[in-house]
């Protein structure tokens, strides 16, 4: 009898075990994290180098306000999937510090994040009471965080200066010096190339940053002269001074202005001469590079540089201590392979470098390094206010000083009152120019960013010429603007668009 009922007994035991486990019922803590009774707010980041500083800032915040903030780290690998699951869990951490602005734009446009324009227009609880919170950020970081519709889905936290790490031995062998101008840099690339050395190894893959940084800096420089023509809906009496970053501090380019500018051809890759000029400049430099499309992952480019097979490696301020450590290690374990190295910022561009009129020189704006997002909390709407207040503290002079003092990080603090560390200076330029995001070569939403890479690969491989590339880029930009229009139709001022286009409506928006 017992043997015949064995199966029933096992099934019954399984059912009882499932009932006791109860994964489908009861309240659960935030996915993967414990918001215990001790913590009022959870902050998560994968920037390991910032963790000690953030915890120091959280301790200071507790002293000031009595609010307990739990700062947790997570691995960088698969953070995108982690972020997605967190946001979908409806109980994400209160504050997340992540890299760049693409993901904030993506999830912001999916209405999973708190929009922050109103918050930065009001004074901060930990800053000057007579000016908006947004004024405390270094220009133009706040503008860098706005998406193509002008909405603010993230706060700037750290920026990086991007430049070049070079092989000092290779330079010394050819009598080269760190370039200060565009033509000097291209000259160095050419000199290395002509002696059979690889001037720079680049991987054109989706996680590649080098070529996009390079192109973004050129794009911003070329398009800067169009800011007044694009930013037509501005504060009364506004005048653009490219040499004064303050002149764009409260300005933003919204979707209406972008649609108008595209229809007018100002930011249309196919009709704008600036994009053709961008490609010419890219080719001038890239003809001396070793371009890999898929044979190497971008994470291996550092190894290529350390092995002495690439004379340059384009990276940011965060890499300074990393490379110093690597070189120290190399000197210890394989001194014959160690080499002298140095850095220089992206060289200065001038009117002599372009066939088109330009204003000002190089801005080191290749995107935000660390940006803060505040996820919406449907089950705990009051958390947003708690999170916002903590962010105000973090981005105050006191908070940011605490973060950077405790951190082995060399990124540029987004807060004006806290200067960059001296070690970061080699990658910083002295002059900043006024900046508004007139256009973005990779397109205006997440899908266009993903679709950009195949056409970028085709151009680099020679499979498509400039005209074909610009035609594809045009299609990509149009598609992204259409998607944004369909998503935010309620915010679009059709009357404004028609008025600016002489009563016409863009045919690529016809019927939508």
């Amino acid at each position: 009898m017992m043997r015949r009922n064995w199966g029933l007994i096992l099934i019954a035991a399984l059912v009882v075990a499932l009932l006791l486990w109860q994964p489908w019922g009861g309240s659960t803590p935030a996915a993967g994290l414990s918001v215990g009774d001790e913590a009022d707010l959870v902050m998560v980041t994968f920037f390991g180098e910032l963790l000690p500083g953030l915890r120091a800032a959280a301790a200071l915040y507790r002293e000031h306000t009595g609010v307990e903030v739990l700062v947790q780290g997570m691995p960088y690998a698969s953070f995108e999937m982690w972020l997605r699951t967190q946001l979908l869990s409806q109980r994400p951490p209160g504050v997340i510090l992540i890299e760049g602005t693409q993901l904030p734009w993506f999830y912001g446009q999916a209405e999973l994040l708190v929009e922050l324009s109103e918050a930065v227009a009001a004074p901060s609880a930990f800053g000057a009471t007579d000016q908006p919170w947004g004024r405390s950020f270094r220009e133009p970081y706040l503008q860098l965080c706005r998406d193509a519709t002008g909405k603010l889905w993230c706060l700037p936290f750290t920026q990086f200066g991007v430049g070049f790490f070079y092989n000092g031995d290779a330079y010394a062998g050819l009598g080269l010096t760190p370039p200060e101008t565009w033509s000097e840099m291209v000259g160095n690339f050419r000199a290395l190339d002509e002696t059979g050395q690889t001037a720079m190894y680049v991987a054109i893959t989706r996680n590649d940053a080098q070529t996009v940084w390079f192109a973004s800096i050129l794009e911003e420089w070329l398009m800067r002269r169009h800011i007044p023509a694009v930013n037509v809906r501005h504060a009364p009496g506004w005048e653009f001074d490219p040499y004064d970053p303050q002149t764009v501090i409260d300005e933003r380019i919204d979707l209406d202005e972008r649609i108008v500018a595209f229809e007018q051809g100002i930011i249309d890759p196919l009709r704008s001469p600036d994009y053709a000029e961008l490609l010419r400049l890219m080719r001038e430099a890239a003809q001396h590079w070793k371009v890999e499309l898929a044979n190497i992952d971008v994470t291996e480019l550092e190894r290529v540089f350390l092995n002495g097979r690439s004379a340059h490696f384009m990276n940011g301020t965060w890499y300074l201590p990393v490379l110093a450590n690597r070189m120290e290690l190399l000197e210890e374990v394989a001194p014959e392979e160690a080499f002298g190295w140095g850095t220089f910022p992206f060289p200065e561009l001038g009117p002599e470098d372009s066939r088109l009129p330009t204003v000002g020189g190089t801005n080191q704006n290749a995107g935000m390094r660390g940006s803060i997002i505040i996820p919406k909390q449907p089950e705990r709407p009051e958390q947003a206010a708690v999170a916002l207040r903590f962010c105000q503290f973090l981005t105050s002079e006191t908070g940011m000083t605490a973060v950077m003092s405790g951190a082995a990080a060399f990124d540029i603090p987004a807060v004006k009152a806290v200067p960059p560390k001296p070690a970061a200076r080699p990658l910083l330029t002295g002059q900043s120019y006024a900046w508004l995001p007139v256009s973005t070569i990779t397109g205006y939403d997440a899908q266009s960013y993903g679709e950009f890479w195949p056409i970028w690969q085709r151009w680099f491989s020679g499979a498509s010429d400039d005209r074909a590339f610009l035609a594809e880029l045009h299609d990509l930009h149009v598609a992204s603007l259409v998607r944004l229009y369909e998503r935010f139709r309620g915010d679009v001022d059709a009357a404004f668009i028609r008025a600016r286009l002489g009563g016409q409506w863009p045919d690529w928006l016809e019927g939508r």
Partner: protein
Amino acid sequence: MGRVRPWVYLLPCVAVLVVFAYVPLVDGLRLALYRTDGHGFSRFVGLGNFRELLTDELFWHSFRVLAIFFLVALPLQVICPLIAAKLINGLRSTRAAYLYRVVLVLPMIVPLIVTIMIWRNIYMSDGALNRFLGVIGLEAWQRSWLGDASTVIAALIFMGMPWAGGPNLLIYLAGFLNIPHELREAMELDGASGWRRFWSLDLPLIRPQVQIVTILGIIVLLQAYENILILTNGGPGSASLVPALYLFRNGFEYGRLGYAAAIGCVLFVLSLAFTLANMRLLRGDAGVRER
């Protein structure tokens, strides 16, 4: 109770299957009728996603790439293990047969990701393949195997070399072992050549195994994209983009879950169609061919 008991025993397994296989399938069909990002945005569009697929050039391009895999990789995956199994089955020494079986099946235990990373290192510009070509004096053949649109698909197919091992080999071996010795001896006595015995005896009797291997191969080809995602991400350009990868991109990179679900529906229908066609083509009594 005697009639109910088998159902009770099956219940946990069926419950898991329903929850994790059939419910997502039906929900996927539902999702395909919506324009949604899986977060807050959702709008019923009926067959809108499928209509968009009809004019999506990249979608059709991915099928052209898949067709190349079908024409080249599928026959290799079906025929090579069959030949290997026949050869192993024909060995007189059981020890040798065992050794070859182990050698060909053992690579199965290596995780797929490890295999992919090894091949990536082989294909790198300064990887083993290019270095080998340099050593034997074929520098002219060195190239960016995964970065060149003209070689990327061949490189991806070649990763499976020798295509003779794995579960397909075991399936065929099982089929060969089931062939009665008496039939083989009878044909030998009749003077049939080795090729004749294979064509007229072995092949018809292992038709069910060929059917299974082909169906599995089709399903795997329709669904597989992991190696392409890691190695080339569909590049260079879109030269190695397959429908499954396009589905992944739309669902998880572009936030177009409804559109991705529509692609999934198309792949499901194709899997079903190929499976039914395969079963029909290879149907028939697994009997010995007569002269």
